[in-house]
Structures are given as structure tokens and as C-alpha cells.
């Protein structure tokens, strides 16, 4: 399968099964488009079609190049893993620890229901439960060295003393069991102070701070418990943390909704404020809400990613460099196919643990009926449920098998699939549509930023044929 597209004015071909990405000129685009639409077309037929709009000699040269690439196995690479099996043997290596189900903000779109997780639960994680969670993770992690633990909520900083105690315990476990914990905290930033900032910058491999963008956009959706805006409570604290962190290993993470479909301005606002690692995500919520994104919004959203992409290219060249999570692709050094097929690992390699020690497939499943997998307190864990999540890889999903983006999104979010379609094997359509557009922009950006590196006359630059 080959996915041919234009984004940001750049024509690109993705050879889906090999991951090969090619920059095309107009002639190459037209020739390949004709061949994709008419797979059995003869050279004469393709040349006749191209002759309508292109010079005949140039068209013949392009077609010869195209045939050479196909002959060399660079395009239309066949499927290589028809009988794929996930090879993780029940290992769990990543955990989201819900440090608090309470929150000091009342964000309108919160999937955690402002901390209550659909359970009228505002509980706080006892440190001992957090330590038991780490013990359980170490036991379940087999020979994995790197273990990821994300403190989440609610708002985890409502329970900072427990986080500090659990991290210290984790460092003891590292020595004892030859493991390495990579800690992350996802916070709304309200309670950041010097002590916590220094602790984070010493102990957290990653810090995620939620800011939606422009003050008015942020404040509309992320009010405090008394209904006032929270932007002014956070912005300077976030800047301090990032400066002391030397712009390393963090994300400013926001959500866009139907209220700010001009979200490129929110990304650019955050960049203007000096943040270099940004992630803005579409809201995922019940369609009944005014702020829920609707299918008819998609053309506007696509255009917005294009607008953001164009400005992104300009700024990364003119000294105002920043990184946008969904435009970040490592096309040569990215993950192996095993990882691309298995995705985020929810319910299999990755689980969430609540303040009362319950285990769920991921943070988004917490509080949903019949989704509990066990408890770190009594060390019960339903391995049948784990096996079910393990089998939910991208090639097992009917919709994904014919999708060009399958090795990039890996089948999408199981929690979204469950929420919208009642089935973790049926991806959420809107998520797929937006993901595909983001990926096209990301690839186009990569191509534009890298194509000057490959100006040699070997076929397709660095192919070696």
C-alpha cells in the first residue's frame, strides 16, 4: 500500500509497510496517483494521461524512475506480518498512579469528571498504597529495566508528600532489583512552588503541565473551584519550572474544543511565552456538550493544522524553534514494528492504579463499569483481561487493516474506542480523521526540513540502489 498526499504544499508518498517516505515533484505525484488509481495501467496509458499536462520527455523520465523504485521494492512493499502475535508474556512495565482523585480546578471537559472519576470519589492516595503499586510493578516487570510511572489525578500535587515518599521508595527498589524508574507528573500547575519545582527537576524524567493556550481560552474551560480563571495562577510557575529545567523533558499540554477551533493561535501563544515543548490535543467528550468537536468541524480543523504547520516551519528556521508533539516524527529512528503494532499497551503493559489500589487498563478507564482488573493491595490481577487487551493490536482491528496510518497510530486509543463504540477493537472515527491529518502534516514537515539533505543523484537519495 502507498499513501500519496499533499500537505503544506508538499507532495509526499508513504510506502506503508516499509515506512519509506519520499518527496515528489508534480510529475512524480501525477504519475504515482495514476498508477494507484489504475494499478494495471500500462506505461503507454500512464504516459498518455501525463501528456495532457506535462512535457512528454519529462513524463517518460519520471515513469522510468517510478518503475525502477517499484522494481527495487521501495514502493508497494507487501504485508510482512500476517500472523503477528504480541510477545510480552504478561509483563507490565508502565503505570499511571492516581495520586489524588480530588482537584483544585473544575475543568469543564475533564474526563475524570473534575476528579471524581464518575464515582463520587475525591480520595487521596495513601503513600503505602503507592509503594505497594511500585512493588507490584517491579514484580510484574520481568526482565524490563526501564519502568515508567506517571503521577496523575485529579490533581496529584494535592498529595505531594505522598509522591515524594513513593519516589524515594522507588529509588530504593531500583538498587535492590536493578530497575530504573522514569517518573512523570501530570499537573495543572496551580500548586507548583520552589520546593516542588526543584523536586520535579531532580526526580521527574518528564513533567506535563496543562495549559490550553491564550488566557481567555484557558480560563473558559479551566476555572478554579470558585469559578475564576486559573491561567494567571499557573503561567509564571510553569515558566520558572521550564527555565530551571533548561527546556528539557517536559510538555505544556493543552486541550482544544469547539470553542477554539483556531487553536493554532493557542499553540503559538504558548511558543511566544517561551515554551518549546508543546502538545495540544482535541477534546474527547460526550457529543451532547457545546464544546464537543463535531464531524462538520473537521475541514476547519484540517485547515488549522495546515496553518499551524506553515508557521511552525517558519519559526523553526528563524530562531523561534519549538516542538509540537503531533508534528514530531522520527521517520528514521522511530520505534520498531513490534511497538508500532502494539501501541500504547493499555491493559497489557500499561495500567492505572487508583487511590484505593484498584487496577484499571489505563487512566481513562478508571471508574468505568466492569473495567477493574485487580488490586495492588491483594495482588489480584485478571490475566484474562490482560490477554484480551494484548490481543487488541492494530492488525486485529478490521478498520485498521486497510488504513495507511496503522503503523503510526497503532490502532488509536482503546479508551476512546470503548467510550464511543463500546468495543476496544473499534476505533473512534473522529480520532482517526484528526490523527491522519496530523500525520500528513508531520510527514510533510519532516520532508520539507530534511529534503535539502538529500540532493545526490542516487535513486531516491539515500536508498542505496
Amino acid at each position, binding site marked *: 500500500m502507498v499513501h500519496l498526499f499533499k500537505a503544506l504544499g508538499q507532495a509526499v508518498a508513504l510506502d506503508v509497510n516499509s515506512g519509506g517516505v519520499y518527496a515528489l515533484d508534480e510529475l512524480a505525484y501525477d504519475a504515482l496517483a495514476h498508477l494507484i488509481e489504475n494499478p494495471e495501467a500500462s506505461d503507454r496509458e500512464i504516459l498518455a494521461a501525463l501528456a495532457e499536462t506535462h512535457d512528454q520527455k519529462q513524463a517518460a523520465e519520471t515513469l522510468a524512475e517510478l518503475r525502477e523504485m517499484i522494481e527495487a521494492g521501495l514502493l508497494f512493499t507487501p504485508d510482512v506480518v500476517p500472523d503477528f502475535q504480541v510477545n510480552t508474556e504478561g509483563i507490565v512495565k508502565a503505570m499511571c498512579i492516581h495520586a489524588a482523585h480530588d482537584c483544585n480546578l473544575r475543568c469543564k471537559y475533564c474526563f475524570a469528571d473534575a476528579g471524581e472519576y464518575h464515582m463520587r470519589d475525591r480520595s487521596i492516595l495513601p503513600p503505602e498504597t503507592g509503594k505497594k503499586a511500585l512493588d507490584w510493578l517491579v514484580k510484574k516487570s520481568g526482565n524490563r529495566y526501564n519502568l515508567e510511572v506517571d503521577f496523575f489525578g485529579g490533581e496529584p500535587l494535592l498529595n505531594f508528600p505522598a509522591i515524594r515518599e513513593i519516589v524515594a521508595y522507588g529509588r530504593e527498589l531500583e538498587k535492590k532489583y536493578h530497575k530504573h524508574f522514569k517518573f512523570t507528573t501530570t499537573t495543572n500547575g496551580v500548586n507548583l512552588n520552589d520546593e516542588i519545582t526543584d523536586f520535579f527537576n531532580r526526580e521527574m524524567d518528564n513533567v506535563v503541565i496543562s495549559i490550553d493556550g491564550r488566557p481567555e481560552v484557558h480560563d473558559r474551560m479551566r476555572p478554579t473551584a470558585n469559578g475564576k480563571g486559573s491561567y494567571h495562577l499557573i503561567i509564571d510557575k510553569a515558566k520558572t519550572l521550564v527555565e530551571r529545567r533548561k527546556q528539557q523533558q517536559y510538555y505544556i499540554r493543552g486541550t482544544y474544543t469547539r470553542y477554539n477551533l483556531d487553536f493554532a493561535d493557542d499553540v503559538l501563544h504558548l511558543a511566544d511565552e517561551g515554551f518549546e515543548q508543546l502538545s495540544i490535543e482535541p477534546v474527547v467528550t460526550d457529543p451532547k456538550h457545546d464544546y464537543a468537536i463535531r464531524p462538520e468541524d473537521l475541514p476547519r480543523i484540517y485547515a488549522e493544522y495546515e496553518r499551524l504547520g506553515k508557521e511552525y516551519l517558519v519559526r523553526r528556521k528563524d530562531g523561534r524553534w519549538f516542538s509540537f508533539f503531533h508534528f514530531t516524527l522520527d521517520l528514521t529512528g522511530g520505534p520498531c514494528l513490534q511497538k508500532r503494532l502494539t501501541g*500504547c499497551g493499555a491493559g497489557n503493559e500499561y495500567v492505572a492504579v487508583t487511590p484505593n489500589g484498584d487496577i484499571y487498563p489505563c487512566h481513562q478507564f478508571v471508574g468505568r463499569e466492569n473495567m477493574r482488573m485487580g488490586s495492588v493491595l491483594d495482588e489480584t490481577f485478571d490475566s484474562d483481561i490482560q490477554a484480551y487487551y494484548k490481543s487488541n493490536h492494530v492488525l486485529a482491528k478490521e478498520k485498521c487493516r486497510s488504513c495507511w496510518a496503522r503503523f503510526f497510530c497503532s490502532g488509536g486509543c482503546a479508551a476512546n474506542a470503548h467510550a464511543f463504540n463500546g468495543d476496544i477493537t473499534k476505533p473512534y472515527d473522529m480520532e482517526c480523521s484528526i490523527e491522519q491529518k496530523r500525520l500528513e502534516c508531520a510527514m510533510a514537515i519532516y520532508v520539507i526540513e530534511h529534503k535539502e539533505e538529500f540532493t545526490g543523484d542516487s535513486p531516491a537519495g539515500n536508498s542505496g540502489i
Partner: protein
Amino acid sequence: MKHFQAIAQPRLQETMKNRGCGECQSSCQSACKTSCTVANQSCAQKEQAAIAGRDGKTNHQANR
């Protein structure tokens, strides 16, 4: 070649041979928490090799 230019040729099909070491980051842990884009993660093995040659610069800063 004049009309086609290779930008990346990772030959994904060949990466199945090592069955995956499992040391890479869980994708949802990194930034999004609401969606899944595995391909913007890094291979832990390649990243280790790259860090050694890049004065500790993280992957996301590599193209800076």
C-alpha cells in the same frame, strides 16, 4: 533520481526480526493522555546510541 527523493527508508518490515526489546516509552505516558501516536516515540536502543554521540541532547531536540 530527479522526481522522487527518499527522505526516510526505515525498512520497518526488517525490524520485526528482533521482536522488540520492550524498553521504549509507553506512548500515552509521554504527553497526550488522550490519544495515541506511537510513531513519534523513539526507539530506546537507537536513542541511547544517539545520546552518546549528541552530548545528551534529547531526540526532540535533535533537529534543532
